[in-house]
């Protein structure tokens, strides 16, 4: 039994096209999932720190439940368990417009939203209480204080752990293959099925993921430098791993 390495299978025939389609799909679910996760994360993270108890409890329940269940379970849940509960019109629309895509971004969004909220919460809590007190004493409401002072500062503080979570989201997009999303890992399996070149296909996928992760990290580092507030010193970790 001999395995012949043949790197050209990656660009001859259909493989190249499949890889490209896979990358595009991965970036699509990454982008939409990220937007959902950031919105949920900022809201839930902030709500976990406000002085109003019912809101805190609501946000905490969301975070604790979604964070402690595997992403794979949320993918199955989003694809198999949720659609039958929706109104028929929505179901029809979903199935005509790539239900698996929306199930995947739903799962990624709520799961990483819970994780982002922890990062956000830690960031907000690392801002001295005096900031909020000062803001309130100038006549701002709690909502305004958060919107204009606390959250903008927190967002800058959390860039390193947020970068980590963003990279995690990109890597977790690979789990979507289990519900039939034709993302990058799915396509490496596709190439492998049709050409039997497992090593080359997996290597190509691995290299592309590495490149994407490093790109995100360097973009975020640049963003951090551009939005930095002079004089605001970041002390070590502000988030969970």
């Amino acid at each position, binding site marked *: *039994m*001999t*395995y012949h*390495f043949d790197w050209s299978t990656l660009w001859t025939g259909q493989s190249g096209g499949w890889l490209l389609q896979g990358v595009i799909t991965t970036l699509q679910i990454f982008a939409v999932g990220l937007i959902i996760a950031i919105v949920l994360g900022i809201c839930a993270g902030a709500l976990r720190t406000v002085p109003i108890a019912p809101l805190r409890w609501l946000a905490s329940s969301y975070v604790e439940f979604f964070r402690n269940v595997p992403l794979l379970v949320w993918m199955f849940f989003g694809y198999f368990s949720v659609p039958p509960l929706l109104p028929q019109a929505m179901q029809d629309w979903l*199935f005509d417009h790539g239900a698996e895509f929306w199930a995947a971004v739903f799962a990624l969004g709520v799961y990483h939203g819970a994780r982002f909220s922890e990062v956000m919460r830690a960031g907000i809590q690392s801002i001295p209480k005096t900031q909020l007190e000062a803001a309130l004493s100038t006549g701002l409401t709690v909502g305004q204080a958060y919107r204009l002072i606390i959250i903008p500062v927190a967002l800058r503080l959390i860039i390193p752990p947020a970068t980590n979570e963003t990279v995690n989201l990109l890597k977790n997009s690979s789990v979507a293959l289990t519900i039939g999303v*034709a993302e990058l890992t799915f396509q490496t399996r*596709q190439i492998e099925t049709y050409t*039997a070149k497992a090593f080359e296909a997996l290597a190509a996928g691995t290299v592309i993921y590495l490149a994407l992760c490093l790109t995100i990290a360097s973009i975020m580092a640049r963003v951090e430098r551009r939005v930095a507030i002079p004089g605001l010193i970041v002390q070590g970790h502000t988030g969970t791993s």
Partner: protein
Amino acid sequence: MKLLVAFLVAVVLATETTNLSFAESTLEKIDKSGTFVVGTRTGSPPFAFVNKNNEWVGFSINLVEQGILPALSKKLNKQIKLEKKESTVPTRIPLLTSNAVDLIAETMTDTQVRREQVDFSLTFFITGAQFLVRKGSPVKGIQSIAGKRVAAQQGSTNAKILREKVPNAKLVEFQDQPAAFQALSQRQVDAYTNDGIQLAGLKAKAPKPDDWTVVGDFFSYDPYAMAMRKNDSDFRLVVNVGLMDAISSGLYFDLYEKWFGAKGEVPYPLTPENKRFLQLQVVPK
């Protein structure tokens, strides 16, 4: 970072000039480890599936346990243990070529293209591709499938043929049969294409069998065979002898009756011409 890139480049260069090869044949491998590893399905009734008692059973599994394993033990002169691993359409050939399993015994169609990557045993079942739809669906076969959402298993012959014959049908590929069937039962697709017998099996085992119909003429010819690594004639001989003995001794037909007979899990009568075909495969000793 640079170290990482250097490492990866080194790997690519190293592999460009090397081939990985093993002198060990499958029989030697089984002899040394004492275990015969078979790749089979968990969701393809009645060939290989998990029943209500959560036991892993099926027609293909029985053929291996009762037909091929004895032949193997006799050839190697020792008791060989059978180990089952789950295989699916996209994973079965890689599992074989990577030595993770020795034989694929499930619902794999023997095709010329696949023979470039693996060797096949004798044919042990004959069927063709059809569609599974909800009762009363407007889909009646491959002629009415254009523009509809159709589920299939990633890498299956059905997916390939459908892609070629009906390019404007919206093909949604799943990792395995249960996922595809679930999509169908939740109306996420209009039809599910697979080999007729598997669709009949799914229908029989579904919570509400009367909700489903198998439609369409066979739009492909699907002879099932067991797959093994290429250029391993000694092992292939043992597998074929096992199957031939099962057919000539009547074991095959007993198993067929158990799973596909009138009182079987999925009634699917054996046509006289198919029976003759199976019997003619048994060459004289």
